């Protein structure tokens, strides 16, 4: 479904809401409009299962009056509804309490060159539906040729185009276009009562950069069949190697613990640790909104603050918390261009790569578990503790010996950051929050 060059009308809508807010008595107002169109196709056993093509538009805004904030959002964009929402919001603000940290940021004076960020692939709109279906179908077909694969969750191809517009009473007006494409496949191997499953997904802003069907199929097959005929292991403390996808959740957990909102709310164990060592010297973690073409890049955050590069952990020392304007004022720290809605979100938030190849890391391990998948939640930012269901590969004498299922791993984030022995060289930015392969000296693995 093609969009009809909506940029000007989106900007006009956002500005109208800001003006309306001021007219109803707000001291400050800020409005965001997003306009997206979504395409997705799921193919299973060679047949198209679902085909979704749609577009929609969404508005959110906040008003501040006497240092009291009220928010609202709507997908109903009729004049009458919007006027009522703005009026309600200004009236509602009066019921809140005065909060000296409330308010919009000053106008950001460091505009980012949006074109250089390469967030938008103009080709996406030109790709024919049949070509997209063909790619998904081909991906699944290749995988199903492997006789070890016994069932398929299907292959999906998704393309999204989104325009984001922000207008603010501090004078800021900005907008940018983004595209996201993904090709994914989920598989099962093994007979009914001994099934194993896994998947692979390639994600990129640019359609032509997606991994080809052969690669997605091969990776999905490899990841699935390597788990066949797993064993349980006994409960022990042992070295654990995190594959990149697993380091991703560790890094994501760290984000939750360095979020300025969690810090001022005291819901993170790192709240009073700024400037202290929380990891060893191999650990450097960065938030960067400005790396061209990456999934987490954007020119400005949801408050119009220019995105930037922030070193969060510098060789193990906690250097920065990631703040929106509110958390920054609360903590007397700079805002870092991480605002998202009323909270904070990572841009590209990653553990800097080391120099060892994943093969070298495995070869260095006399006895240990390669963590390949986890299920469940079990992350507690208040204490830094985690405990998750785990799947993996057992390593003996520097080589993979057999698959392991139905165990749990548990530990504490700080303990892990201090005990990472090797950082791999395979950082690939497949997700906005990511890291390379790492080896942790010892974690509790619970089994039999």
């Amino acid at each position: 479904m093609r969009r009809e060059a909506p940029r000007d009308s989106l900007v006009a809508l956002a500005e109208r809401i800001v003006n309306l807010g001021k007219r109803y008595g707000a001291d400050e107002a800020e409005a965001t409009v997003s306009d997206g169109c979504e395409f997705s196709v799921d193919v299973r056993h060679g047949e198209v299962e679902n085909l979704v093509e749609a577009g929609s538009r969404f508005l959110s805004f906040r008003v501040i009056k006497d240092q009291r904030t009220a928010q609202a959002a709507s997908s109903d964009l009729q004049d009458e509804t919007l006027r009522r929402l703005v009026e309600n919001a200004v009236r509602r603000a009066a019921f809140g309490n005065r909060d000296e940290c409330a308010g919009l940021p000053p106008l950001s004076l460091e505009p980012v060159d949006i074109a250089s960020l390469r967030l938008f692939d103009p080709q996406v709109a030109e790709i024919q539906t049949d070509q997209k279906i063909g790619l998904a179908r081909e991906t699944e077909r290749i995988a199903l040729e492997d006789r070890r694969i016994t069932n398929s969750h299907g292959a999906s191809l998704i393309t999204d185009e989104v325009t984001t517009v922000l207008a603010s009473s501090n004078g800021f007006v900005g907008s940018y276009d983004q595209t996201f494409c993904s090709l994914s496949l989920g598989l099962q191997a093994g007979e009914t009562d001994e099934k194993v499953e896994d998947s692979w997904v390639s994600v990129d802003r640019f359609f032509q950069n997606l991994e080809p069907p052969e690669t997605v199929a091969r990776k999905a097959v490899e990841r699935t069949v390597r788990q066949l005929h797993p064993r349980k292991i006994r409960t022990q403390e042992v070295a654990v190697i995190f594959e990149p996808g697993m380091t991703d959740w560790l890094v994501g957990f760290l984000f939750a613990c360095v979020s300025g909102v969690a810090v001022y709310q005291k819901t993170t164990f790192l709240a009073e640790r700024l400037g202290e060592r929380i990891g060893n010297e191999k650990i450097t973690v960065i938030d960067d909104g400005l790396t061209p073409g990456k999934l987490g890049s954007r020119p400005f955050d949801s408050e119009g603050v220019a995105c930037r590069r922030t070193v969060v952990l510098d060789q193990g020392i906690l250097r920065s918390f990631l703040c929106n304007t509110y958390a920054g004022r609360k903590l007397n720290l700079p805002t870092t261009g991480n605002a998202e809605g009323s909270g904070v979100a990572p841009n590209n938030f990653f553990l800097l790569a080391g120099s060892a190849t994943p093969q070298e890391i495995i070869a260095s391990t006399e006895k240990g578990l390669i963590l390949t998948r986890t299920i469940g939640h079990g992350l507690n930012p208040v204490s830094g503790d985690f405990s998750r269901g785990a799947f993996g590969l057992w390593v003996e004498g520097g080589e993979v010996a057999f698959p392991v299922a139905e165990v749990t791993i548990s530990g504490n984030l700080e303990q892990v950051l201090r005990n990472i022995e090797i950082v791999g060289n395979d950082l690939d930015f497949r997700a906005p929050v990511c890291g390379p392969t790492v080896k942790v000296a010892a974690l509790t693995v619970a089994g039999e």
Partner: protein
Amino acid sequence: MALSRGGDISEIYSEYRITSFIIMEEDIIKETGESVSSGLGIRVISGEKTGYSYTNDFSADRLRRAALAAAAIVQAGKSARLSRFKPAAGPENLYPLVRPAHQASLQDKIELVRRAYSSCQKADPKIKKVKVLLQDNVQHISVVNSEGWSGYDARPQVKLICTAVAEKSGRREYGFSGGGGRVGLEYFEKTLSPERIGHEAAAEALLLLEAVEAPAGEMPVVLAPGHAGVLVHEAVGHLLEADFNRKKTSIFWDKLGQRVGSSLLTIYDDPTIPSFRGSYCIDDEGTPPRKTLLIDRGVVCSFLQDRLSSRLMGLPLTGHGRRQDYTCIPIPRMSNTYVDRGQDDPQDIIKSVVKGIYAEKFEGGQVEDSGKFTFSISAGYLIEEGRLTAPIRQATLIGTNIDILQKIERVGADLSFSLQTGTCSKDGQEVPVTDGCPTIKISRMTVGGRS
């Protein structure tokens, strides 16, 4: 127009939802908000294929384009004939409201928030941080399809939740409690007071300050009544959703009529429990819902059906086609899922364990189609020589469902339900649910603690 290229069924779902929230933290009412979600989804089904489109722009041109986008799924074929619409007869009103939250004044709602906040804060000087959220919405949905079904539902929803952080000699712990459902504000006077919600959140955080590390390894696990329903939700409920069985990815797909668990185990999913968070008068495909027996004394009895799977499998509709909102295709989902009460005295069940854990509060779980599932406990106790002793910290439990279902050794007579605050996520769609169970003993399960 949606059937212009052929197809078996076309359907139009429209939704208008108004949500509002109030947040209190740091002793002040910090934020309030209101949001409107309005839109329409058009679906065309042809055999196993589904075409879907949605829009929040109700102009004739956009509706026409959405209908044609949904119709694009059909290559060629005969159109189904349009039938005359007849309204679905759902259960009587499941949401008897005295004081609907969406009509209440902001002052009244703020008062509830303040009461919960102050009760939590005053519970103990060790409580360092409190946050309270009151959220309510009313969702109007209507569905019509080319087979002649039509239906309308107006679903209220309220939740009041409180989180607390307690601190003692540098150690911090977190507590949570809450309540609500498809109820009016009278619920917080008659059923569960804001004071109790605040107090329970504080109590959990304070308890965890004294907690020891959970043990690691295989041991007997006793599930406390109520919250532990998350175990059946993950271990059984999801894998009895019809889509996974139609596609043969669930390990239950060939087990209808077969014994899969202990004869002590009977499980229902019931969308018709009045006032419950997971209930509805019609599902999101316009089908009147039914209380559905899933497992009868260990034997698989039925799957949770939506229209697509029911047609393709030739099995009766159960009224479990749900969707997060108008942007989503409906899929089979749980509503209020629970293990039926058994015979045993809960105290006797605890007494029967020499060394194990008592799992009391949960923060969710996950399952995959192969039957491997986890759930995480946020609070519990060690059981030593038949008695609850030290409180334990967070730990994840893991198992394979058929294995664990067979290891259910005792089922108590004390059925209760989880907090009315739960949300279940599947295929990226979130819907409100509850689950429940009596005290249950599992003879062995892997516990992921650290000691």
